């Protein structure tokens, strides 16, 4: 099934990056054991990365052939990339995820997840703070109990918190 669509900003750069990464991985696969034997440790990754590289070249040419999404005159490519692919909301939400993951070990699952839930719900447009606070608390409580009892999954306790209470 082939769907005709317009080329988004950054699509060519993405295709180029895929090609560069594929070639880089092919080179590294080659360095494992070169062309020494068809059953060497490097032979199989060489085949897979070669397939990646060849298809990335074709994807690049296909991408160049698609007509671009029409934009207002004078808009830079970077601005179009921002509006079409990574609008502020996605960037901010992604950054909040990064922050959450970085705080997961120091603060522990309960505190970091609670902070993440309350902040990201607000960021994504749920402006009723009390509801966000209550839903987050209920969800964390439920997840924590279910994980500990039914799934027996260990969650991070928080190195910083444990350190403070030692």
């Amino acid at each position: 099934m082939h769907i005709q669509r317009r080329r988004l900003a950054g699509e060519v750069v993405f295709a180029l990056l895929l090609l560069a990464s594929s070639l880089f991985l092919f080179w590294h696969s080659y360095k494992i054991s070169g062309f020494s034997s068809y059953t060497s440790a490097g032979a199989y990754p060489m085949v897979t990365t070669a397939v990646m590289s060849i298809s990335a070249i074709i994807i690049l040419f296909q991408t160049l052939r698609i007509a671009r999404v029409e934009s207002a005159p004078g808009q830079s490519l970077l601005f179009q990339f921002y509006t079409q692919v990574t609008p502020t909301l996605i960037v901010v939400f992604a950054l909040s995820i990064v922050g959450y993951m970085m705080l997961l070990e120091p603060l522990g699952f309960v505190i970091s997840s609670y902070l993440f839930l309350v902040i990201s719900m607000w960021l994504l447009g749920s402006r009723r703070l009390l509801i966000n606070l209550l839903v987050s608390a209920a969800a964390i409580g439920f997840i924590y109990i279910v994980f500990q009892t039914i799934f027996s999954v260990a969650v991070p306790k928080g190195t910083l918190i444990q350190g403070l209470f030692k």
Partner: protein
Amino acid sequence: MNEALGYFLIAWMDPGLIGLIAAGTLAGIYIGAIPGLSVTMAVSILISFTFKWQVNEALALMCGIYLGGVYGGSRTAILLNIPGAPSAIATAFDGYPMAKRGEAGAAIGLTTIVSVIGGFIGIGALALAAPAMSDFALQFHSRDYLMLAIWGILLVGSLSGESLYKGIFAGALGVTIGTVGLDPLTAEPRLTFGSMQLSAGISYVAAMIGFFGVAEVLSQVHDIKLKAVRQDVSKILPSWGMVKKYLPLSMRTSGIGVVVGALPGAGGDIAALLAYDHAKRSVKNPSRPFGDGAYEGLVAPESANNAAVGGAHVPMLTLGIPGDAVTAVIIGALYIHGLNPGPMLMIQTPHLFWFLVGALCLANVFLLIFGLTGIRVFCKIMEIPKPILLPLILVLSTIGAYAINNNVVDVYWMLGFGVFGYFMKMYGFQVAPIILGIILGPLMDRSYRQAMISTEGDLLAYFASFFTSPISLTIVVAMALTLITQTPWWQNWRKAKTA
């Protein structure tokens, strides 16, 4: 036979397992229905939570979620014109026009009945075909496994994406991700860049959660402002006359579902679209024109996609080759539980096969019960705003990735794959071939080397071996056809022929 029946009834006799299947089916209906939550995502996250469980318990939950989820996708397709899962895309063609006419209740009721019929036909086919297929699979050579795996990735990449090459790239990327770590034969490091962490390989569960969980959540932020629409959902139960009228079509399209589901890599989404196409061609006088609320347009895809569940289990259990993305994830779960899907699975652990058949049957019974009740509660849950839902999925994904090794590094991998998957989705790539590639990578590696060693490293003899046995030749022809039908020449020829 008595032994098989005993194994079959395990799921029906144990209250704990019955509860898990019921909970899984109910959860699956909601997960499948809520746009942004997918069955693949749910099963991926569940793997990391259930690996400490007994294999029967983990499989019981996953069976329920799988079957419920395939059905659940139809609910939002009918009510909101947003398919909750790819397998419900064709359902929206006629389901939503029916809802607009005030027949949402009737549409949901009929969908439930035909889904259950399709589900039972699929499970019946699994019970009959898998033992025979398993015996047949013992004749497969390593080269056949290699070709089957490549064909599976090609099928999933070519049929569901916008470009064959994007599918091939995604599949090859998945296979490459699967090669990172120490070589299983020589213990040489491969693509580890000197990192000790990478020597142990990249966790496929972290990759699955990243590609199906985080990437999906980020994509959903794009249409965060979509609001749910309320529909009239009274009069659910269809009349016996209606069921009888559509039974032949349901059975025919279930057959399509079983066959398509059993193809490696092709799942319920393709089965549903093909079944819809079949209904359009074969039904001369539909209840209404197709696309305008025809009952036939609802019966065909919904029978097929649930029948495809049973079909997809056939290659998964007999060859170790997934029928679709969800079975790829379930194979991952079986590996974690120390099982090795393939022809030997039926011989070494027949109890597991018959248990799975029994669990799927029970899940189908629960599907009937939950499908025809609780619609009003369902409509309320549908109204959960995405700003609340998406962060919750992310917390579950994070803790799922962490639980694999109690290590935050897997969480970073998950995030990395999630962000990468988001860009891939934005630029028209499918992520399912990546997962198929990761799961099938080790099997392909092993098969490739065994086949090459058996021809003593002679490249000509290696390629010639593909044409020396009927099985290998059939797979090669099927692969060639898949590739040829994706070429512009073929598509131009088809267009010219139909014009």
